[in-house]
């Protein structure tokens, strides 16, 4: 995002709408200044009611900066998934896709969320730690497309310094491997300069219980009282 200096009146309202606090006022408080290294190209300031003079504008983004918009602007449609946002259908359509089958846990690690954003260098650290389990990262997730080698979690070198609002590392593991994956995530969480959220899903047992919940409880892992529940209304139901 850029500022047309001739139109900016230095009101400072746009500063309030930047999720990563990349906008500030100049020292003389006459102009909004966008730190281009910190801006994640999410478009929030431009869409907001902040600027009354039309001083904000979005120039065309080229590679590698274009990945910032892809993983930050919720209205950008990823060509891989065909949907808006940074993620995939994941468990939301598991009733018709059987993406996460019985005996497996689906895991998503959203690096940079909430509010801090992430350099892809940190996203790579997490992906490389997970790749050692021999997982297959979700192919239609836009984050996977940024990897030079999805088998190792290595990202393309020219992307490593790019900053995004968040990048989601998504995969499935045999459910008995879940505790080891979580221990690995705990270790790598101390090696990055940002934050990530972790979530785990699984296909419910015939009695309605949740396979991964027992593992989390047994391992004394904290998990929220809040959940996402696919209620099984999609058709045609996937064969299992």
């Amino acid at each position, binding site marked *: 995002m850029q500022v047309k200096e001739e139109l900016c009146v230095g009101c400072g309202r746009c500063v309030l709408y930047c999720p990563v606090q990349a906008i500030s006022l100049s020292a003389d408080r006459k102009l909004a200044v966008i730190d281009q290294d910190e801006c994640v190209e999410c478009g929030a300031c431009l869409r907001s009611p902040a600027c009354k003079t039309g001083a904000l504008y979005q120039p065309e983004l080229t590679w590698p900066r274009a990945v910032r918009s892809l993983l930050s602007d*919720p209205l950008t449609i990823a060509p891989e998934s065909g949907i808006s946002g940074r*993620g995939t259908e994941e468990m939301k359509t598991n009733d018709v896709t059987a993406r996460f089958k019985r005996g497996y846990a689906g895991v998503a690690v959203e690096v940079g969320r909430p509010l801090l954003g992430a350099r892809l260098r940190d996203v790579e650290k997490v992906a490389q730690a997970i790749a050692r389990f021999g997982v297959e990262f979700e192919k239609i997730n836009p984050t996977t497309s940024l990897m030079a080698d999805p088998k190792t979690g290595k990202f393309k070198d020219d992307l490593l310094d790019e900053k995004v*609002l968040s990048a989601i590392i998504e995969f499935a593991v045999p459910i008995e491997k879940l505790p080891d994956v979580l221990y690995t995530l705990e270790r790598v969480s101390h090696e990055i300069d940002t934050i990530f959220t*972790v979530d785990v899903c699984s296909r419910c047992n015939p009695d309605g219980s949740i396979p991964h919940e027992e593992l989390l409880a047994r391992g004394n892992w904290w998990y929220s009282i*809040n959940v*996402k529940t696919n209620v099984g209304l999609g058709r045609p139901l996937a064969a299992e």
Partner: protein
Amino acid sequence: MTHTLHRIGSYNDLTEDYVFLMMPSKGINVEGSGEKLRTFLEMALRHNPVIIGDARKGNAYHQGGIDNLLANIEDQAVVQAVFDNKETVVTLLKELKEADLGMSVVVSGIATEVHEACRQAGLERHTVEHSLGRWGRTDKLPPRQILEITNMCGHSMVPAQLVYNMLADIRTGRRTAENAAGELAKPCMCGIFNTKRAARLLAALAEAF
């Protein structure tokens, strides 16, 4: 993934925050899905939702109103509706079961409450996802009371400094808590920011500080 999952708060507070999401699946049931998604939102609107949204085209504020939002729904959209009570969740689940639209439906909310709602609607949970919270540099995050508000936008589009600004406006009488909540909902493009809950939290915070 997970844009409705990581909402945090007390048990009592979260009993007034449920998000319905409906979407088709690429390559399976996308064709003609726009009409079914629109039907769902029309059903939801009959039950007084807190807010509705379309993640593909943006929230109602961004699209210039609910009529535009409904008119603009495309195949392969992802649509949402937020409710503040379990009774409506049960009623809408029953209606969706009867309508048999064939689209996948996800309900976000307290596990036990949603499970009970499914039982009452005659549905069995298919797949469940838990949040394991925030890991890493949690020291860089704003306080939990602020996160309870900002996290209601799953794409992190509601900045902490905007919440602080709204709190200052409420304290000085420039805004009501309801008006501030409406302002905070504008950046949440998916339209899942629970403005009723936000107004409640903002009012309590404004009084406490």
